[in-house]
């Protein structure tokens, strides 16, 4: 039992293939833990694993937790919103389909900030998620349920989505690995959209090897997603190695102000380890990074204001009858179904697009996006990777930022620039500050996932982070 729990997902898969571990028992172990959890990480659990995996199924029956916003045929898929309470789609998201085909049965659907809008999981329509390292604190968000589930050993691994940091930031706050792939690498078909030009699905796992294994079965072109692109090479299992010849750039803009002491100490320690492994570490510039948050909080809400217009009480989801007229049915359904943060962003996005303001807000944001993309392109001419702390702070207490939207938005400060440029980035745990995990972010050029995973694997070995305390 507990030794099963000690296994990483990749190790468990090998054990199953070697006949040393029964896939059904593996599923049952996690199903039991997930059913007994008190973190609020899960919104729905499967009864069983269904079809046993084929003898050569690469994922060998290792159960998967999926963020609520992934549509699964016949399974509640609510994106953490009351407006979709109990909604069971007639089709399955491409990425879930691929992972199931590769032999990973669905264990359950995990809690999240409503429509992926949040950095603490406190915006879920179905209650908050607690951080397994300290239950009075948030797990981060929006993929908070997936991150907490993996950290607490309620699931071997999980998938989430990242729009401005929603995989990397909760991974950092929960002491696990989270990777946001290159935009277009993973199909968005069946992923309930927040901001279509930024959303990407990715793995949340215990270690870098698990992340590589899971990602390898997520990427690939999908004819159902016009923005999906074929991944140029297979995702490789990272191998033993150092960082000789690897050039790391540390952007002043993302590592100077507003970084907590404990986070900074851990970050500097990891940079020192990187040097010991042979990497060169130098400061670099991302001049427009300080404006990334502004661009992000215009572009994402603008797209969201349109993406969420379909929740109108006509075809599915919540419906609140008004005074018999159409408009009052619309306005009351949406008023009752959406939470405060979702309403706030719909308002912000609608305003940014409305006539007279488009050029000053949305239009400018798209130009800032161009500058940020150019900044990264320039940086990657001199550096292999740009590295930053993943989150400026460790997990913060529940309720601390709920009344201060701007403070909440600032927790995405270090993770927002990458999705704006569409580039991949990973967060790996790099220590504890006052008993709470910190994260180290590695970002690379588009489709450099293999290189990122390789570097992350080398650092992971040197850091030697132990997350078992959260699984106890």
């Amino acid at each position: 039992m507990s030794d099963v729990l000690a296994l990483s997902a990749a190790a468990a898969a090998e054990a199953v293939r070697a006949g040393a571990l029964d896939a059904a028992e593996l599923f049952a172990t996690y199903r039991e833990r997930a059913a007994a959890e008190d973190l609020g990480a899960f919104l729905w659990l499967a009864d069983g694993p269904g079809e046993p995996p084929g003898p050569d199924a690469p994922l060998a029956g290792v159960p998967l937790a999926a963020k609520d916003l992934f549509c699964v045929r016949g399974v509640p898929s609510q994106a953490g919103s009351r407006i979709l309470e109990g909604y069971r789609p007639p089709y399955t998201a491409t990425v879930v389909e691929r992972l199931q085909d590769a032999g990973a049965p669905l264990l359950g659907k995990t809690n999240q900030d409503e429509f992926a809008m949040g950095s603490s999981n406190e915006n879920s329509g179905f209650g908050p998620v607690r951080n397994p390292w300290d239950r009075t604190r948030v797990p981060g968000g929006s993929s908070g349920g997936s991150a907490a589930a993996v950290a607490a050993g309620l699931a071997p691994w999980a998938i989430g989505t990242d729009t401005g940091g929603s995989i990397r930031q909760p991974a950092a706050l929960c002491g696990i690995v989270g990777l946001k792939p290159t935009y277009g690498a993973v199909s968005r078909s069946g992923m309930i959209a927040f901001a279509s030009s930024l959303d990407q699905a990715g793995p949340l796992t215990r270690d870098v090897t698990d992340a590589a294994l899971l990602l390898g079965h997520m990427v690939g072109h999908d004819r159902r997603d016009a923005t999906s692109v074929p991944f140029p090479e297979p995702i490789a299992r990272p191998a033993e190695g150092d960082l000789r010849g690897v050039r790391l750039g540390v952007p002043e803009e993302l590592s100077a102000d507003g970084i907590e002491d404990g986070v900074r100490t851990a970050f500097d320690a990891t940079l020192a380890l990187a040097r010991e492994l042979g990497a060169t570490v130098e400061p670099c510039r991302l001049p427009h990074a300080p404006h990334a948050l502004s661009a992000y909080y215009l572009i994402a809400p603008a797209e969201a204001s349109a993406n969420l217009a379909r929740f109108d009480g006509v075809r599915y989801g919540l419906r609140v009858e008004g005074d018999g007229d159409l408009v009052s049915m619309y306005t009351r359904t949406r008023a009752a179904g959406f939470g405060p943060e979702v309403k706030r962003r719909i308002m912000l996005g609608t305003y940014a697009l409305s006539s007279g303001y488009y050029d000053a807000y949305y239009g400018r944001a798209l130009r800032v996006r161009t500058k940020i993309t150019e900044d990264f392109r320039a940086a990657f001419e001199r550096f292999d990777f740009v590295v930053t702390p993943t989150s400026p702070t460790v997990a913060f207490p529940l309720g601390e930022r709920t009344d201060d939207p701007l403070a909440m938005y600032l927790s995405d400060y270090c993770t927002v620039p990458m999705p704006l440029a569409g580039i991949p980035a990973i967060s790996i745990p790099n220590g504890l500050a006052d008993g709470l995990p910190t994260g180290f972010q590695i970002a690379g050029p588009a489709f450099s996932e293999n290189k990122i995973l390789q570097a992350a694997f080398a650092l992971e070995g040197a850091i030697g982070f132990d997350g078992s305390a959260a699984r106890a």
Partner: protein
Amino acid sequence: MIDRAQVLHVARLARLELTDDEVERASRELSTILDHIARIGELDLDAVPPTSHVVEVTTPLRADEPEPSLPVQEALAAAPDPYDGGFRVPSPGA
């Protein structure tokens, strides 16, 4: 600064019913956020083209071949007010 009237206009466009407190709160919060965001106004971006897509591909085209549609009962399965094979709504303008 986004005032009460603007909040109400935006709420109408977004089909959101807001209570008076919500209107007041939205005006306050959105103003704070927009003040922060307004800093991008300082940048000189006139010569900069906008980026709305980061992937450098052109739209793939789908062959004009029919694929199976949903059975009508599945299409209507989640409908709040199914009626006579359709989705019933209050008539517009009624």
